[in-house]
Structures are given as structure tokens and as C-alpha cells.
């Protein structure tokens, strides 16, 4: 980019930028996650005919649910221009809490599990909004602490979940549909409503679009930030519970590295890390892309040692095409 481009991107208020209609490229870009998803499905279907079978799709959806539930919460955080990399560790904490309480509480272990996640999120939110520690650093610290807590209490040994009621509710099937998928979709609808129909959703977007403007316009920025981290914590707690139910145990390794998939899903869906933009539908597309990519490569028999390399390259390419550089201005 030449110097002129940089100056325009800086968006000085006095100079008026050129007006433009939405060019076709931008419309294409907006639809890119969907196009990419369709392409992905097409390629894998050709490589492995079994890919599109109902049985496989159900498995894929079940695998993707944990990612989806956490990514719903992450959408709020990224829309506001923050980040949370402790989400995988929160998943582990909540799975452990669920495992420890499932014997006595059964189905109602959901309450302490989600509460534990929310508490972890509250700490993250307070560190950012009150302590003014940048969210990347704050959650990098809490990630290690939360994961450390799980290790400390389990001493590295898995804690099994045996309660039948709990396992049935959170990991069995009804009418051929996994309960976890139903829960995930219900939460997606809820998150979609929050973003589109509540003042809170608009305020999150406003903070990402212009934090200084939001403060001066009287938005309760501190409160909104804390609440969005609590929301992500609670959703990560739910994700941990579902993951624990699926594997019938909580381990210290549970959700390890999940934060990368979660952030990748949100970004591949088309939500830029710079904030101000984002939608739940996009996040759902991103989750499907990430999940299908992993399971599709397995089914197509791609060398497991090659899969990570392909995954990384595909992610970079996807973001490369999706990001509207004009709107974001400076990329860092």
C-alpha cells in the first residue's frame, strides 16, 4: 500500500473519504464463508462418499457442538474488540466441576458447572474492565491459572462421570438427534437474539466499533465488558459440561488448545478481530468449517501428520479472502 492509501485509511475526520457503492467483490466477500463451506463439503464428498451420510453428519455436529457453544460467547468478545484465550481452560474447570458434582446433583450439576465458568469469566472481565489489563495478557495469565487449578485438584488423574441421568441428558439421543446438538442450537438462537434484539448486544458492537465514542456517549462500558466475559465464561462452562458428558470423564487435558479453534471459527466465519462487526450466523458457519475440515480429512484418509499443516494453511487462506481490508484500515 502506498502512502496515499495509508493516509486515507487513517480516517481523518476533516477529509471526506470517497463515497462508494458496495462493489461486487465485497458482496462476494460477505458470502465467502458460505461458499467456502459448500466447497469444502463438495471436495470431501468426492473424496469420501460416506461423508454426506446422515450418520456421519450427526457425528460431525456432535463434535462441533462444544466448539459452537464456546464460539458463541467468543463472538461477543471479539465483536467488542477484546479476546479471551482462557476459554479452553474454563472448559476444563467446568467439566471438572460437573464431574465432581454429577454424582450428588445428577442433571443439576449444570448449575455449579456453568456457575464455575461464569466465575472464571467474571475474573477475566474484572481484570480487563476494572484492572485495565489488556484482555490478551489477562486471559493468558488466567488460562495458566485455571488449567493449573484443574491439574492441582485432579493431580493429573481423570475424574469419571457415572450418573446415568446426567449422561443421558447431556450426551444421549432423542429422535436420532444428539441432545448436545439441540442444546447448542438453542443457545445459538439465544445468542442470536441477544446480539440482534437487545441493547446489550448493540453496546458490545458499539464498544468494538469505537470505545472512546461509547464511553463519551454514556454507554456503561465497564459493566458491558464484565458481563460479556461472564457470558463467555458461562457458555464455556456449558461447553465443558457437554464435553465431559461426551467423554464421560473430566481430565486435565480436556479442552487443551480449544481456544485456538474457537477464535479460528469466529474469524473464519468473517468476524474481524478488530471489533465492531460480527454475527452468530457467521460464527456458526465458521464452526462448521473448522469441524468439517478436521473430520473430513480424517474420513478422506489424509495423512494425520499432514493434517495440521493443511488446517493452518486453509485457515490463513480463508481469513486472507474474508477480511475487508478497506474497512479495517490498519492490520496488526
Amino acid at each position, binding site marked *: 500500500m*502506498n*502512502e*496515499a492509501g495509508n*493516509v486515507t485509511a*487513517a*480516517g*481523518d*475526520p*476533516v*477529509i*471526506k*473519504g*470517497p*463515497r*462508494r*457503492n458496495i*462493489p461486487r467483490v465485497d458482496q462476494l466477500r460477505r458470502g465467502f464463508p458460505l461458499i467456502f463451506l459448500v466447497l469444502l463439503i463438495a471436495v470431501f464428498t468426492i473424496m469420501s462418499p460416506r461423508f454426506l451420510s446422515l450418520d456421519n453428519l450427526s457425528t460431525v455436529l456432535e463434535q462441533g457442538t462444544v466448539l459452537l457453544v464456546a464460539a458463541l460467547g467468543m463472538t461477543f468478545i471479539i465483536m467488542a474488540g477484546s479476546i479471551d484465550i482462557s476459554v479452553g481452560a474454563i472448559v476444563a474447570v467446568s467439566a471438572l466441576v460437573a464431574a465432581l458434582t454429577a454424582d450428588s446433583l445428577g442433571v443439576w450439576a449444570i448449575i455449579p458447572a456453568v456457575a464455575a465458568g461464569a466465575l472464571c469469566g467474571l475474573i477475566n472481565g474484572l481484570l480487563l474492565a476494572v484492572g485495565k489489563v489488556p484482555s490478551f495478557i489477562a486471559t493468558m495469565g488466567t488460562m495458566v491459572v485455571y488449567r493449573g487449578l484443574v491439574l492441582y485438584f485432579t493431580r493429573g488423574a481423570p475424574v469419571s462421570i457415572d450418573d446415568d441421568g446426567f449422561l443421558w441428558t447431556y450426551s444421549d439421543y432423542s429422535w436420532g438427534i444428539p441432545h448436545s446438538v439441540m442444546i447448542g442450537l438453542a443457545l445459538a438462537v439465544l445468542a442470536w437474539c441477544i446480539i440482534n*434484539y*437487545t*441493547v446489550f*448486544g*448493540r453496546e458490545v*458492537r*458499539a464498544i468494538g*466499533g*469505537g470505545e*472512546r*465514542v*461509547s*464511553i*463519551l*456517549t*454514556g*454507554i*456503561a462500558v465497564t459493566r458491558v465488558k464484565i458481563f460479556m466475559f461472564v457470558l463467555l465464561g458461562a457458555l464455556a462452562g456449558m461447553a465443558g459440561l457437554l464435553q465431559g458428558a461426551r467423554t464421560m470423564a473430566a481430565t486435565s487435558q480436556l479442552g487443551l488448545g480449544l481456544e485456538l479453534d474457537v477464535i479460528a471459527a469466529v474469524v473464519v466465519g468473517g468476524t474481524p478481530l478488530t471489533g*465492531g*462487526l460480527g454475527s452468530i450466523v457467521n460464527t456458526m458457519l465458521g464452526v462448521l468449517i473448522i469441524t468439517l475440515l478436521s473430520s473430513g480429512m480424517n474420513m478422506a484418509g489424509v495423512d494425520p501428520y499432514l493434517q495440521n499443516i493443511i488446517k493452518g494453511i486453509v485457515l490463513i487462506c480463508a481469513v486472507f479472502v474474508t477480511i475487508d481490508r478497506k*474497512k479495517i484500515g490498519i492490520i496488526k
Partner: protein
Amino acid sequence: MTLVASHLFKQFGPTRAASDVSITLRTGTVHAIVGENGAGKSTTLRMLGGAMRPDSGEMTLDGATYAPQSIGDATARGVALVHQEITINRSLTIAENIFIGNLRGYARAFGIIKRKRMAEVAQAALDRIGVKISVTTNIDRLNLGELKCIEIARAISSDPKTLLLDESTAYLDHREVDAVLKVMRELKSQGMTIGFVSHHLSEVLAAADDLTILKDGQFVGSFRAAEIEANEIHRLMVGRDLSLGTYPPRPPQADLSAPAVMRVDRVAVGRELNDFSVDIRRGEILGLAGLKGAGAEALFAGIVGDEPLRHGSIEMAGQPYHPGNPRHAWKNGIAHLPGDRGNEGLIAGFTVLDNLVMARPPTRGPFFDKTRARSMSNDLIKLIGIRTASADAPCRSLSGGNMQKVVLGKCLAVGPELLLLNNPTRGVDVGARVEIYRLIRRKAAEGLAIILSSEDMPELIGMSDRLIVLRQGVVAREFPVAADVEEHDVVKYMT
């Protein structure tokens, strides 16, 4: 060096930013390009300076073809461009800032910089433009005008024959503008050809030999500055005579018995404002004059709770009011239009509707009430005369003036009792200004109390009922009736 451009065209999407612009910068003269916001001034200057390529048209330098592909190309041909924005990096020294584009020219082996040599050359450049700044000065201590001079020194360090200054003084106050004008005269006396873009007409007339007028991207004409009247320039810029009725008529007499909306008592904020007291009455426009940092911005920050009060107290309608944070202020009926539209006033990527209802979004239970938000926005768009395709158009698609109307709409949407305006027409074209002035005056007549802080002296005098001049955080002078105040009277107390 004579720079001739003929029939330049530049189009962005559907917008003609510059259409058939022809301009001649004569050797050793100052040529001003004037016009309203969006007239194509910056586009033209950037094409001359190589920052932008024209779609069609030709340029020559002393008769030779000149078609720069980049700013670097233009510099190599002896044409240097100073950008409108301040591009000084405060974590570097003055000398490093001057040579930021050519640090390698001062590097020895392994890229280690010859600091002493660089400082000497930098000092020479500063001396040449006649500013009294030592390169060893801490860069944080320089004001905007001085920073602009550093940028000019940077531009002339490549020893150009032609210097192009882009809207160089839009953000500068009087003193700073004078400093830049002095530098321009100095360079002109050294034989430099200068092209510059400005908002301020008086400054154009003071400095320019020639001027070119643009309007809505169209070339209107080029003139000798000595042969054209200010009114005529104005008329050509906006296409109508504005000498009568820029500022709406004031009410015949201020109502001194009107109750005080706010009583500020010996308030101090930060290091900028000390022991400031004032009563703001219903329906009154109180003007605050002063240089940057004289206290007006600090007062606003203190009232809205963006900065804590060091001491002092504030009353609203007879009740004590403790500023906590901006949210608290809005709840108490105080609306605030910040001075920096892009970073503080509105979110350009959001729609007109999003911005208009941001301060107090209408709700139904826990939900955002989109229907009511839409009718509210449509009412505001009509009331304020915001020219937009619809309430759902992104603000970035609007002109500067219309963006500012959106910020004003956001303030009025909450039905405030007190409105704080910080340079409400900064970067706003003349046409939109008049509309904003009328609206402000009408709101005052309806009982709204308004504090207006502005660097635009005619605006301040034309709009205020009462005028307070601040200097270094204290009241230097109060004019109870602003109507018959002269500009130089005010400026006298500012410095």
C-alpha cells in the same frame, strides 16, 4: 519551478472527486486552492504531489512531462507534499522525525545512525524555514503548529523546488496558523513554489498570490489574489452570497432572570483549568474562547466526568451534581458533542440510526425497540436536515457536515437541558454550518442551555450571547454581551 496541471479528472466509485481541474503554480509564488469540504481540494493537491494518480489529464514541470507514480517519484522531481494529518511519531526525536523517510542516508555500518550529523542537518532545515526550535527539544513539549513546522522541515529536507501543503491549518489555532504562514513567506522569499489548501479564507487572502476555487469537485476558476474580493470568493465557493445571514439573529435581549441550569463554582480540572466559576442560564448560548489547553476542553471533561474535578462544586437546578462518568452526565440531561468527530463523536462504520440512538436506545422490556428507533431517527434526520440515503446508510458514506449533524442529533435525541459543543463546525462545509447554526439557535430559543467552545472566532462571536475568554486556565475577560465584540478584542485576551 512552474508546475502546470491541465484537465485533471479523478473519480472514486460514483463520486467525481475532481473534474477538469487546471492549475498553474508559478515559480516563487504561493497558490491557494480553496473550496468547501468535499470540493476536491485535497484530491487535487495529492495528484500534484504524486500521492494519487489522476484518471486523466496532464501535468508538466517547467515544460517537461510530469506523471509521478508515487510520492517518491514526485520528491525525486523536486515536488514535496506535506500531509493534512500530523504524522509526527512522538516516540522519536525531532531529527529522526525529519529524516524518517531517509534514515538509511545517515547510517554507518550495521545500520547504526550517525546521530550528530543527522541532528546538524535537521537543525539546518529548521533554521532554513525560520522557526526557532532546537532539535534537542523534547518532542512532547511542541504544540501542533510546531509539529506542523517539523513536517514542513521534513518535506524540504529533500530540497524540493515546489512545496505542497495539504489543509495545513485546519486544526491549528491562531498563533499556530501564524507560525505556519511565516514559514511559507520565508520559503517563498527563498524562491520556493508553494501550493496549499486551506479552510480559512482570511489566511488565504493574507498569504496567497494566486488562488484556484473548486466547488463539488468542479473547477470554478483561477484568480490573482489581489484582484478578487473575499465575498466574491465565498460566493464562488458555495454558489450563493453568505455575507448576510451566516449567523441567525439573536433574541433581542438576554433574559437575565432565567433560572440557572448549571452553576459551576470554583472548579479546577487537571492542570488546565483553575477556579472557574460560571452560571449557565436557560436558553443562553455561552461562548468560551481560548487557545488549545486554555481550559475549555478541561471544563467539558470535568462536567461530563471524563476527568475528575480537582476541587470545586457543580449544581444543577439548585441540586448538587457530582460528575462521575459520562454515563452519569447524560442521565442528568447533559449532552456533549466532542471536538474529535472521528474518534469521539461517532462510529463511522455504523449506520446513521445506530449513532443517533446510541446515547439512549429506545427499549421495550429487555429488548431494543427497532420500530421506535426508526421513527426517532427519521424525525431527527428531518429535524436536523441530515442528507443521507436512509437511516440505515453507514455514516462513513456521509460528508463531514452531515456526520457532524448526526453527532448533534445524537445529543438532541436525549432531550438535554445542557448541551456542550466543542468546535461543532470543525471540518464542516459552509452550507452545513449555516444549518447547524440555525438549529443551535432554535434549540436555545426553546430553552436549551448551551456552552459553545470554538477556535473559529467569527463563529464564536456570531453565535454566543455571552462570551468568556480563557487564558491558561483562568478567565481573562468576560464579555456580557457578545453581539458587539470585535475579533481582535477577543484574541488580545487569549494570548
